[in-house]
């Protein structure tokens, strides 16, 4: 599994964490504003990600022990 932070899963988790820590009250105003800006930016990036459209379906096959990606022709 990809462990990238900038995929939808990672960004959504980060956003949830930010909302969580902003909702806890023991936080300074300066830090809060920084978190807020980051959160709003993440929300926008997540929405952008969702608006992408993946039209092609790929096919994974093993060729000589290596993974090959082909285009899948739907029957």
């Amino acid at each position: 599994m990809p462990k990238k932070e900038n995929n939808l899963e990672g960004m959504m988790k980060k956003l949830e964490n930010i909302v969580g820590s902003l909702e806890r009250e023991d936080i300074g105003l300066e830090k809060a504003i920084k978190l807020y800006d980051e959160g709003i930016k993440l929300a926008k990036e997540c929405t952008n990600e969702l608006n992408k459209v993946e039209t092609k379906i790929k096919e994974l096959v093993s060729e000589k022990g290596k993974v090959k990606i082909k285009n899948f022709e739907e029957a």
Partner: protein
Amino acid sequence: MDERNILSVTEATQYIKTMFETDIILNNVFIRGEVSNLKYYHMGGQVYFTLKDENCQISCVIFNNSVNSMKFNLEEGMKVIARGKVSVYERRGQYNFRIFEVQPDGIGALALAFEKLKKRLYEEGIFDDKYKKPIPLYPEKIAILASPSGAAVHDVIKVIRRRAPWAGIYIVPIVVQGETAKESIVEGINLINKFKEVDVAILTRGGGSLEELWSFNEEDVVRAIFSSIVPVISAVGHEIDITLSDLVADLRAATPSQAGELVVQEKTIIVNNIENMEKRLKESLKELVYSKKEELSELCSGLKQLLESKLNSVSVKVGLFKEKLNLLNPKTILKRGYSIVERSADRLIVKEAKQVNSKDRLKITLYKGKIQADVV
């Protein structure tokens, strides 16, 4: 008695054996009965036992190659249907039933094998919830292990496309029934783990008989799903068909379409979720600013109070001083009838008589008014 009609024991036995073996019915017959006196001969690999019913019994033997193809183990008291031929064991002069194949009576061999493997794997803990990997909430790359021409793959694709147009779909073609299916499924699972990029995999196949779904009950397949790093959702057969793949998978879907629904959330739900979080961000910042303002105004009023109380205490002190000063004011003494005598020439306050000479002018200050006087 004609000498030519006398047979040796061997000749007689051979003749009897030929009779049995050329008989059309006894050559290939199904016999139903209960297993007893079961003996395994590990060295030779064959199994000996007796099949019996209420009245009769017959000695049976299963030879090595037939034993190996059996999908279950015989047990004492088990009711079975066996196919084989009746023959003669010459050395003992006994007839026996040589079995080619045997299946449990009532419950099919596969069903029995299924139950046995399930029990063994269950005891091993392979189906435990503690081994279930979490399914990602927002997968972007989804692998579908299925027959590329089947209806199942089409159903899954349709649902994912509708709900999550952003998600990448990777089809891994596998054989879903027959001799090569087991190997093909295991290879498919290994392939996605090698590829490393997919977030989750769906293993799917349409409905079928227990025989047709059998590859999904193979131990190798179960173990491949168990050791997969990529979480696996299984959707094999219809809702009522539960395979061991379903039990070991991280999540089971009743149908291929349901697998599509389980793997991705509706876009609107995620968008709502994001909007909701945005709202919460704004709210909590607003609240924080408000509470900081409150804090500030509380501090201000506290400061004011402190200042006021300081001022108050100062003014009380000032009053006291005033009073003291008043008491010390010489005028206050004059009020009581005393007067101050000054030598006019140098304004010396006269305290002793010798400070005054004849002809000196004096100024006498009374409580009210002043008097000038000359000393005689």
